[in-house]
């Protein structure tokens, strides 16, 4: 019951060839059964940059996933295998930044497997809901100025390269004294 009550905000990237959007997605992109999940259409699951999943996590989403066609059945070639590998590599990077790697996932379902897809997303949502702690570890200074982190972090997410170190040395000195 408690798991149902808590609905983590989740962003999903959905391959255009994979699960059909008909009947499971509302006008605004959220899923009919799971209003906490927003689906973003992409031309192929291989199109997704892993940095975008991290970007979503740093901007308020508690979980992010990519849905592609069943492995071996990419309309193009190996797009779903590629994104699977990239997300697997990304887990290490997330761990290093103290973000729980289970917050990202890949799901593989074909055009007509809507029921299975919804079930998989629901399971992912419940798993994310059960994860502890804040999504992005607050920098030590965040306690002083809580609203600062959500507004500042988009910039760090976009430039991708090295968000942690780049933001770290620049910001703290003044603020640490404040905190």
């Amino acid at each position, binding site marked *: 019951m408690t798991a149902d009550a808590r609905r983590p905000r989740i962003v999903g990237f959905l391959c255009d060839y994979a699960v059909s959007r008909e009947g499971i997605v509302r006008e605004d992109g959220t899923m009919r059964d799971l209003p906490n999940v927003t689906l973003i259409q992409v031309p192929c699951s*291989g199109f997704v940059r892993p940095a975008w999943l991290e970007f979503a996590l740093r901007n308020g*989403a508690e979980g992010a996933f990519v849905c592609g066609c*069943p492995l071996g059945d990419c309309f193009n070639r*190996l797009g779903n295998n590629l994104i699977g590998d990239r997300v697997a590599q990304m887990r290490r990077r997330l761990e290093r930044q103290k973000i729980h790697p289970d917050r990202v996932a890949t799901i593989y379902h074909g055009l007509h497997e809507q029921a299975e897809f919804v079930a998989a997303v629901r399971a992912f949502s419940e798993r994310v809901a059960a994860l502890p702690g804040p999504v992005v570890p607050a920098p030590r200074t965040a306690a002083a100025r809580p609203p600062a982190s959500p507004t500042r972090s988009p910039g760090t997410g976009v430039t*991708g390269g090295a968000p942690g170190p780049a933001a770290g040395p620049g910001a703290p000195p003044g603020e640490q004294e404040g905190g």
Partner: protein
Amino acid sequence: MYKRLLRRLLGWTLALDVWVNRVYPADFNPLYYTGGLSNLFLTILVLSGIFLFFYYVPSFNDAYTSVQFITAEVPYGQIIRGIHRYAADGFIIAILLHFFRNWFTERFRFSRDEPWISGMMLLVFAGFIGVTGYVLVWDQRSALLVAMTGNSLASIPLVGGWLRSALFGGTGLTNLLLPRMLYLHIGPAVFLYILLWWHYVRIRHPKVWPPAVWTLFALGIVMLLAGVLPVTSQPPASALSTPGRLAVDWFFLLPYVGLKYLPPLGLILVGAVIVAYGLYIPYQLPETETELGIRDSGVAQVIDANCTGCELCYYDCPYDAIVMVPSPHPGVTKAAQARKLLAVVLESRCVECGICIGACPFEALELPRYLERDIHEKVLSACRSET
């Protein structure tokens, strides 16, 4: 109407996939490897065919006895002959599965028309090679096949008679017939490999071989069939007795069954129309803009300033649409300043799938109508919305 039928066939194909995926893990789903299975059977055919070639004698007097000699005297001859025969059936089955699967899942779109057209030619040649193979045995079925083919060809107005004598080396049965059939059995088989090169040339990472499990399984099935149902010849062909009925191999000789119901010219016309339509499939019903939707995002563009020449997009592009050229000038960003290479997108091959965008860690590639910025906006609006 026709479109709805195709969509339903797509649905059935995918449903079949799901069902097979329950039995096998997706890595071993044989329906994902129909092309690789065809290639495997072709390899088996070539190897066993080379073995048979050493013993076969292409003349009226000796052809039948040489086949009997292979079957009875040569060590493992019976098995090799059976392998050659059943692998041919497997070849046709795998090709047809490959054909229908790629048709119904629309894998002929965009720059994939070249694999499709070369695939149609491979299908036609495979059927032709199968028929010439049946003639080589020179039993009663072979004689009947020659007669039926000759009569059908002769029924074509104007060029028919010339075609028949060109194929069989003169009217009636001449000494040229069997050597010519032997050449037409082996020559086109070599040509298959040229077509296969064309079939693969535009595809990166083609799945040329099935997983090892399926290689062993297909080999096992073929050998088992060769042992359990040994291949035999019919009585030898002779000018005196005319065989009444055709023992049909349903995979190769299906068109000859049609002769029962259609006049020869009609049958040839039907065949020609089927092949012509097959060649036309990639160009009919191009997807409209609304159907394309998000997939119509424009040819991928390289952002010169950011490209570091790392070749990641080049390795991942499914259609070989990205080439690396020597960099004419250094890039702008720090990472791109020392680059030796620059990625260039060939517009005619790009299908706008965006796999290169996901491959690029330096933000040096974008789809013009679906930028990274748009994605960020969508993510942000999703995160701001009330849950």
